[in-house]
């Protein structure tokens, strides 16, 4: 498809420059092929990866043309096909008026997506994105051929969100692959991909994906508005976008979900959420999102509802354990010993007898140690992993207790907290719990359970005020939407979830029904 470039040449002085839609001055192509080639190469910095091939057509022996492309970011097969088409072009020119430029477009180039350009900058940026370019002598337009490709990782199993039952495909760093993965799941004409380019230097491609009629129009518009407002030189990962478009900057809680699972992204799209894909990362963003979503895993919908509900409760409990257990231990052993059964109290007192630090300092020592071990585990080369495990488990755990630096009970508390923090399916929600844990430990160590209660009240007020793209974060609990409770910390069977979540998806009634004639399975009644 051709885009009629609307660039206007500046009147008078310099016929070689014009302005683009944003008012930027740009260099227009001139009839002289040599000059165009030189300007293009100068614009691209004369890199060694620029391939330039000058060709002549048998029907136009006096008119040369040049093929340009960037090696490595183009699809080799497409280039081969195109070259073959150009060189073996046996078509006779039928009309005298037909020029080489039109002939190439209409008859020679055997690649699907082509367009034209009139400015060196446009041509250069297209090449940087993987397009091939043909400059024709005497023509003021260049032909841009979409040959985007090059080496990229193949579709593999996601590393951060594994499941026992469910699809094993994960998103990759290639945007086109990612859009295809979604298209393969949702084969609906209502599925929309709105493309954008962000980043002055990186010119990163972004796709906003949603289901028209299911996603709320105002949410889609708001996503577009916020993305369009981003002004940055580089986008290297979706995290950049996330920080720019989230509703509140200063909060430990994630306000946008991320996933590398196509099925999870599609589930979100089908519930009316908007997915933002960013070229160069397998992690896509999903918005708007509520607090409960971070405790749900795609697998919950693939296995039986009863076990899914049970596991969701386990995850929520783990979140609270991860956030509260060390602070509760500190508060109870420091301020509220009367709450403990006497034998346990005596046992704890005996363990803590030789420990020189108060419980708060002891807990801080252990928690910081664990955080260091955890970070080391992520950053170190995999081959030395076992060494860190030995050092962590034996030296810092057992030896610290034997040396009387910390009590055995504290090691148990910290270990259990650590394990609980890994249960939360969303890593970013786990990170929130990690940060809040330290604040609550200080409150618990200073004011006991009253301090923890005050901290929880602060969290509750804070979370009650949070919004994700205008949607209350604590939906559907506050404000209460009873029908949405079916898929929160519990999951009812699929046949009972007839409607999409109210408030998240479009209000148009026909679109709300997820299950048509689906009813509770009852073979006896069917047979009767």
């Amino acid at each position, binding site marked *: 498809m051709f885009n009629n470039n609307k660039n206007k040449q500046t009147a008078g002085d310099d016929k070689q420059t014009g302005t683009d839609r944003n008012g930027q001055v740009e260099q227009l192509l001139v009839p002289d092929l040599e000059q165009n080639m030189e300007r293009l190469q100068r614009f691209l910095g004369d890199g060694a990866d620029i391939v330039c091939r000058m060709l002549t057509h048998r029907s136009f022996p006096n008119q040369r043309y040049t093929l340009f492309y960037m090696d490595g970011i183009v699809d080799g097969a497409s280039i081969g096909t195109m070259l073959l088409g150009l060189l073996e072009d046996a078509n006779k020119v039928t009309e005298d008026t037909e020029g080489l430029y039109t002939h190439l477009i209409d008859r020679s180039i055997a690649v699907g997506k082509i367009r034209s350009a009139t400015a060196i900058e446009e041509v250069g940026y297209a090449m940087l994105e993987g397009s091939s370019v043909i400059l024709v002598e005497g023509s003021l337009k260049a032909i841009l051929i979409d040959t985007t490709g090059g080496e990229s990782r193949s579709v593999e199993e996601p590393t951060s969100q594994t499941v026992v039952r469910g699809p094993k495909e994960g998103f990759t760093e290639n945007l086109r692959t990612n859009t295809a993965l979604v298209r393969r799941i949702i084969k609906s004409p209502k599925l929309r991909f709105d493309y954008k380019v962000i980043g002055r230097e990186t010119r990163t491609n972004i796709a906003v994906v949603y289901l028209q009629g299911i996603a709320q129009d105002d949410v889609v518009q708001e996503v577009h508005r916020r993305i369009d407002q981003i002004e940055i030189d580089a986008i290297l990962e979706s995290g950049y976008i996330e920080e720019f478009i989230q509703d509140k900057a200063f909060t430990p809680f994630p306000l946008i979900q991320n996933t590398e699972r196509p099925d999870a992204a599609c589930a979100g799209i089908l519930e009316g959420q908007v997915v933002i894909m960013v070229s160069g990362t397998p992690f896509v963003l999903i918005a708007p999102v509520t607090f409960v979503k971070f405790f749900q895993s795609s697998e919950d919908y693939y296995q039986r509802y009863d076990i899914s509900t049970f596991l969701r409760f386990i995850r929520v409990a783990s979140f609270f354990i991860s956030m509260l257990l060390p602070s509760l231990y500190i508060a109870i052993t420091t301020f*509220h010993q009367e709450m403990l059964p006497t034998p346990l109290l005596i046992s704890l007192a005996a363990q803590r007898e030789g420990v020189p630090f108060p419980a708060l300092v002891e807990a801080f020592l252990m928690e910081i140690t664990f955080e260091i071990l955890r970070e080391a585990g992520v950053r170190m080369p995999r081959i030395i992993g076992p060494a860190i495990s030995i050092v962590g488990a034996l030296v810092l755990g057992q030896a610290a207790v034997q040396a009387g630096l910390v009590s055995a009970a504290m090691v148990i508390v910290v270990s259990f907290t650590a394990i609980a923090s890994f249960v939360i399916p969303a890593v970013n929600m786990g990170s929130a719990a990690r940060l809040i844990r330290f604040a609550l430990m200080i409150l618990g160590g200073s004011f006991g359970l009253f301090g923890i209660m*005050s901290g929880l009240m602060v969290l509750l007020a804070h979370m009650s005020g949070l919004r994700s793209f205008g949607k209350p974060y*604590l939906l559907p609990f506050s404000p209460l939407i009873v029908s949405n409770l079916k898929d929160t910390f519990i999951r009812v069977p699929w046949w009972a979830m007839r409607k999409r979540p109210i408030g998240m998806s479009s209000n148009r009634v026909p679109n709300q029904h997820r299950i048509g004639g689906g009813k509770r399975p009852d073979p006896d009644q069917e047979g009767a």
Partner: protein
Amino acid sequence: MMKPEISTLQTVAIVINAITPTAVLSVPSATIGFASNDGWISVLIAAAAGVIIAIAMAAICRGNPGLLFVEWIESRLGKTAGILIGFLFGVYYFNAFCMIVRQFANFIADMVLDETPIVMLIIVMVAVSAFSIAHGIEAIARSAALVLLMVIIVIPISIGLNFDDINLKRLLPFFDAGAARIGLATISPILWMSEVSILFIVQPYMKYPKSVMRASVIGSVGSSVQLLVVTVMSVSIFGAEVVRMMSYPLFNTVGIVEVGEFLERIEIFTVSVWGMTMYVKMAVFLFGSVHCFTHALRLKSSTHVLFGISMLAIVTTIVTWPRNTELGQFVIVDSVPFLTLFNLIIPACIAIGLLVTRGKGAEKEAQTP
């Protein structure tokens, strides 16, 4: 900026949390102190009166065409009256806030943190309340709804755990205290129930302002039910004579619970949930104060008002009641005219003013497209 919207359920939660947290502390002692084992009858009578007050308050609120409280009063009763009433309500909510903070701080100091300086407790409480306010009335309303959910879960559990100790025969004989003492015992709960007047401030933020009547009545009945449960449990577990000697009968009832032989002193969990209701109450009253002062004095930044009032509240709470007994005296005796004036007399004056200026209101509404 979007106008905050509060659902009817959240309004009910605000009303209940504005009444019960402090009421459950003082009402059982007060009613049982006067009416002995007939205290629950006083609470029932107070509940009926509370519903009447709630209906009256809601009826007044329904006259509001959607303006904020001070603006509404100004539009109907004139600028001077608006500023005066706004200022008076600002002072009322400020004083009430200080009283609640001190009650809570005293309780925490008495029950749990006897070595922590009370100043620190007060600072934490005011800071948490101010933090909640900074997130707006919607955040307070949502928090109130979730805290109410916790209360709804905790009450049946508490009754269940105390089931073995409950002896309803301790409520007998009925009407033993005599009508006069039962009547006297209703004053305290009725005054607490009159705090439903917080609806003046909250109603303009409601998503469906016309459902204020429903929210008011349900909130009042919900509060009465809580007070009734606490009073009945206190008497039926300990007997009226013992309850009279208790400072906090509510927590003594849950304090005697023992599950198996390994779980005891679990009243701390009940205290924690009650503490959260206290925080909601503090936030609601601080909001009321900030709201009234900001609009009555036409201040541009409510954030600065919030900061100033919070600082003033810390100092006021510390120096007004140098000894805890003075607070007890204030809550039981001095609060009677205080609550009567602001929750009954001034609203009645507002109602009369609105009736007198009814034509003016209708005219304005007609002018509004």
